[in-house]
């Protein structure tokens, strides 16, 4: 029930706001605030209900949604299936927190509030849906639907080049989801739902009668071709998609399939298609160029949400879908995948160093930090995977903070160029302190969360038996680059004698209470996570151990 609430509460809120009369405009932000606050509470409830020792999906809700008989081709079944595990729970909590902070950052929005807040809540609901859906079809639905509010949030409330940025964002992601869609259809045609198949075949009366033995027997019946194809129930359920025993013997994506296209097996192609789909979202170089544009044009709260939450869906998709459904592909290409991660780390870092726009600098630093996620996942070690999930949470908190910080100065002068300011420490001491905290936390200072994520992803990649040691060595230069671009920015913008390009027109005031109310909790959160990383690892451990089993055999 909790997970459904997480999805539908914001959707309901979006509807309410859309229906309220324009005279209630001042209430919209309060409605959004209350709903996102409720989301945080719901995620806390989910956290408390979650049993850390269990490595399976929890808080599962399952309703059969669509059953489509296709005659001889079997039956297609789509479930409304929700659940969380150690991979999704941290991200659910993160999303709830960042969404709440995003409402705080939206407080100063002035025009078209009704549309803004209902789109914002629509986004909240779909993001939550992405993280808790356990049916691939349902996931895809949320994944696609997320595009719509995001497109308008950038396109309507963005900066001068907002149309270009939003279309670019839209097309990029759409291209990715097209690839995912293709694979999804292929998967569904290739995989049966053993439980429902057993029911249609008349072996058991209802799902409660399922035993392990029965599962095995029906799977072996499938493999030996004893099942009548009309009785096979095709499924999108992720649990079944990730088990190779459920693949139809002659199916396109069966691991034993001999089909070769352009020198690749169908499964390898499918892996790459899914990978590209999510790599666009993460983003991974060279599929990243939508990100700086989108960030620069997006208003502050949308940047916060984009960096804090939406990028994580890419990493989540790797773990939940690409790697889990196609372990053979992932193992086959670890070196290349880790290499892409390292490329993102270094390329993003160097690009960040060259940026003149504060927000663009932060955007490229995101590219660099997300590279660690891919590197950690590609390592296929407990350190690497746990570290990657941790890094996503940590980056969610820190990038939210960084984009808020960029927003502070933009709100005052509408100028984000680094060289427009010097010595901001003098008029804005508190702002400087919080910026310094955010920068140091992001560049991996121990005690803050950034360090833990980088440490364990790097350690995992170094210990990995799949990866060459030099990859980690090259990736470590990313840590160095992060120190360089953050400290250089700090020195140029905040230290030295005070000067601002807008001295004549704008008085630079220090942080307002609202800004402090957003930044300080995030800083405290980054500190807490950095001091007590087990807050996250306790959640992820059991799931990751189970997740890795698949790779220990191969």
């Amino acid at each position, binding site marked *: 029930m909790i997970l459904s609430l997480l999805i539908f509460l914001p959707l309901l809120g979006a509807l309410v706001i859309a229906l309220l009369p324009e005279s209630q405009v001042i209430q919209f932000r309060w409605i959004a605030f209350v709903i996102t606050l409720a989301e945080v509470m719901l995620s806390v409830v989910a956290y408390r209900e979650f049993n850390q020792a269990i490595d399976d999906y929890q808080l599962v809700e399952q309703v059969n949604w669509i059953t489509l008989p296709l005659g001889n081709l079997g039956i297609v079944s789509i479930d409304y299936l929700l659940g969380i595990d150690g991979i999704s729970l941290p991200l659910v909590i993160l999303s709830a927190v960042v969404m709440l902070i995003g409402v705080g950052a939206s407080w100063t929005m002035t025009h078209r509030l009704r549309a803004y807040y209902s789109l914002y809540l629509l986004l909240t609901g779909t993001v939550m849906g992405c993280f808790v859906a356990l049916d691939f079809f349902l996931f895809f639905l949320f994944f696609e639907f997320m595009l719509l509010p995001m497109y308008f949030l950038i396109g309507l409330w963005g900066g001068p080049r907002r149309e270009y940025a939003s279309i*670019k964002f839209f*097309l*990029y992601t759409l291209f990715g989801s097209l690839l995912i869609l293709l694979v999804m259809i292929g998967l569904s045609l290739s995989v049966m739902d053993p439980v429902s198949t057993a029911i249609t075949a008349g072996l058991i009366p209802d799902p409660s009668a399922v035993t392990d033995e029965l599962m095995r027997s029906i799977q072996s019946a499938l493999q030996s071709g004893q099942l009548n194809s009309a009785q096979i129930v095709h499924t999108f359920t992720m649990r079944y998609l990730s088990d190779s025993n459920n693949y139809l013997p002659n199916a396109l994506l069966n691991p034993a399939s001999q089909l070769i296209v352009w020198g690749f097996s169908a499964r390898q192609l499918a892996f790459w298609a899914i990978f590209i789909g999510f790599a666009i979202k993460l983003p991974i*170089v*060279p599929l*990243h*160029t*939508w990100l700086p*544009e989108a960030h620069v044009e997006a208003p502050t709260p949308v940047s916060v949400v984009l960096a804090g939450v939406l990028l994580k869906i890419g990493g989540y998709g790797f773990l939940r879908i690409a790697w889990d459904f196609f372990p053979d592909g992932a193992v086959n290409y670890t070196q290349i995948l880790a290499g892409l991660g390292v490329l993102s780390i270094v*390329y993003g870092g*160097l*690009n960040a*160093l*060259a*940026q003149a726009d504060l927000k663009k600098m932060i955007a490229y630093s995101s590219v660099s930090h997300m590279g660690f996620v891919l590197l950690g996942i590609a390592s296929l070690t*407990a*350190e690497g995977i*746990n*570290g990657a999930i941790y890094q996503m949470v940590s980056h969610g908190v820190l990038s939210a903070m960084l984009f808020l910080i960029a927003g502070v100065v933009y709100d005052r002068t509408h100028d984000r160029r680094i060289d427009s300011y010097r*010595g901001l*420490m*003098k008029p804005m001491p508190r702002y400087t302190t919080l910026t310094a905290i955010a920068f*140091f936390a992001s560049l*991996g*200072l*121990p*005690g803050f969360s950034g*360090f*833990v994520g980088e*440490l*364990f992803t*790097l*350690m995992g990649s*170094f*210990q990995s038996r799949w990866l060459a040691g030099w990859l*980690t*060595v090259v990736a*470590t*230069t990313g*840590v*160095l680059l992060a*120190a*360089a671009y953050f*400290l*250089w920015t*700090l*020195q140029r913008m*905040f*230290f*030295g*004698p*005070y000067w601002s390009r807008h001295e004549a027109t704008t008085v630079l005031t220090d942080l307002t209470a609202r800004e402090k109310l957003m930044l300080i909790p995030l800083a405290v959160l980054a500190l807490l996570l950095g001091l007590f*990383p*087990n807050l996250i*690892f306790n959640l992820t*451990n*059991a799931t*990751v*151990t189970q997740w*890795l089993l698949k790779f220990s055999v191969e």
Partner: protein
Amino acid sequence: MPVHTPLSLSLLTTVLLGLPFVGFLALAVASRRVSALLASLITGLGLGLSIVLALHVPDQPLTIQAAWANLSGTLFSASFRLDSLSALMLVLVHFVALLVQIYSVAYLHDEPRLRRYFAYLQLFVGAMLGIVLAGNLLVMYAFWELVGLASYLLIGFYAERPAASKAAKKAFLMNRVGDAGFLIGIFLTYYFFRTLDFSAFNTAGAGVTLPTVLGLCLFMGCMGKSAQFPLLTWLPDAMEGPTPVSALLHAATMVAAGIFLLARIHPLLSPDALVVVALIGTITTVWGGYSALFQTDIKKVLAFSTVSQLGLMVAAMGTGNVSGAMFHLLTHAFFKAGLFLSAGAVIHAVHTQDMRHMGGLRQALPITFWSYTLCAAALAGVPFLSGFLSKEAILGGAFDWANQQTSGLASIIPILLLLSSGLTMLYMARQWRLVFFGNYRNRHISLEQTHEPDWLMRGPMVVLAVLSIGFWFSINPLSVHGSWFFCVLPATSESHFWWLAPVSIGLIAVGGWAGFRMKDPRTETLAVRLSLEYGFLDVLFQHLVINPTQKLANLLSRADRRLVDGAVNKLGVSLVVLAYIVRTLDRLVIDGIVNGAAWLASLLGQMTRSVQNGRVQSYITVTVVGLVLVLWWLLY
């Protein structure tokens, strides 16, 4: 409860480590007036606690552990360790920090951000304590970075000065270069031993051939923090911080951390790695010594003397002489802190750091003069002072090591170390003369206006000068053998070279005479510039590292915009163009075909109109024939 039970010792250690961080937080809310008092009280309390701990150090190292990160079965714990080595450092860090804070009360009397200053100092001390008490490499790395942060904040304390914020950034970044290597070293250690605990290292090395690269990576951490060649240029720039900070940074915290690291990881250094360590240390000693020779800034001379002495300690570590290096760390901490505090008193009096605008201050500042003289003599290794003893320990160990090496080339290292002690005397004597002898050369402040500082400043200076006397460390101030220090840390070599003391005394005498007599050349010869710009390391660094990185960054940024994003945009544009082409085709061809078909139909209509001639018979004929044809097609 008796104080020596492990439980109460653990508790004390935890409290001790927590104190400065509590102090840091307390200073964030305390009022400016009480900040100095509060900070000194906290450090004083810490000093008391660490003395208690030092007196009750258990024979077996005491470890305190807490789970930190548990990753699917692998546990990384926050572990701390108290043994004689850490107890020694605890007392040292607290002692110097306390003196520096007392001194700062007077020195920074007019500083408006005093609270912030003391808070940063507490952070610095706390981070250093963390390094000292760390029980595994991971904890050490964490506090290692925290020391980096604290030094960044303190070096850049006058952040409104561009040079200060630049120096702070440089210090942090250069340290990070070393730390990147350190981190890789940690990964390697974990890879080979599956543990990062110091307690495991003594036995871990046995029976395994240690990878040299492991030791060298860990050593990179030391190269950054302890300013070893070539990562030494941040240290002279770090002089931008307040002078008492320099005293702390050069004596007991920060630069000492690298030496301490080497002491901890010594079992992990393979013989080849040790040779590299010794070599780097020796190069650093000579490099630092030569760079100090022609400096005109009073603090820069001291900074390079620190570089040189750190090189000496590192070389001692490389020659396997851990206790000698630690002994020199201890004696150096006192006289170097004393030198910086005395230099601060001089700067306080004449309001300049340029030694060309000093001179003849002997009578005007007698107390400063004498404490400076004692500390400088100790630094130079003059007999009866502490530096003589610790240098003897290092040089003796180095010659001993060279004798055991198969290659005769190994003796180059101890010989260079020996010569560099003459070099030390040379530049210190020059400085001594420039500051305290000759004519007073300052036009802005008359000699009568200069005065000795406040007692709060004089006290720490005098204490440190007194502690530079050799007697405190060895009953026989001419021989290091029998020093109490080697009861704390057992000496690695017992051999004694009868000629070593006379030779080094001779070298010191020659160096002192030459330094006192030497005239700075008027023209900037290459030799002078080589010293002033410390062997052009900064220039090289700028041209070989910073500029290429920036060029690469700019290049990639352009490539990102033009090529990567350009490709995406071109793809978009070409799709649009394709769409236009298709639309045009659609209009001309497809639509054309439809139109053509219509035209054809009407043509056919024209042609077949003649069939429809109104005659019923022909209609029936056509119908029947058609029907037959259709039936035929359907049936066959």
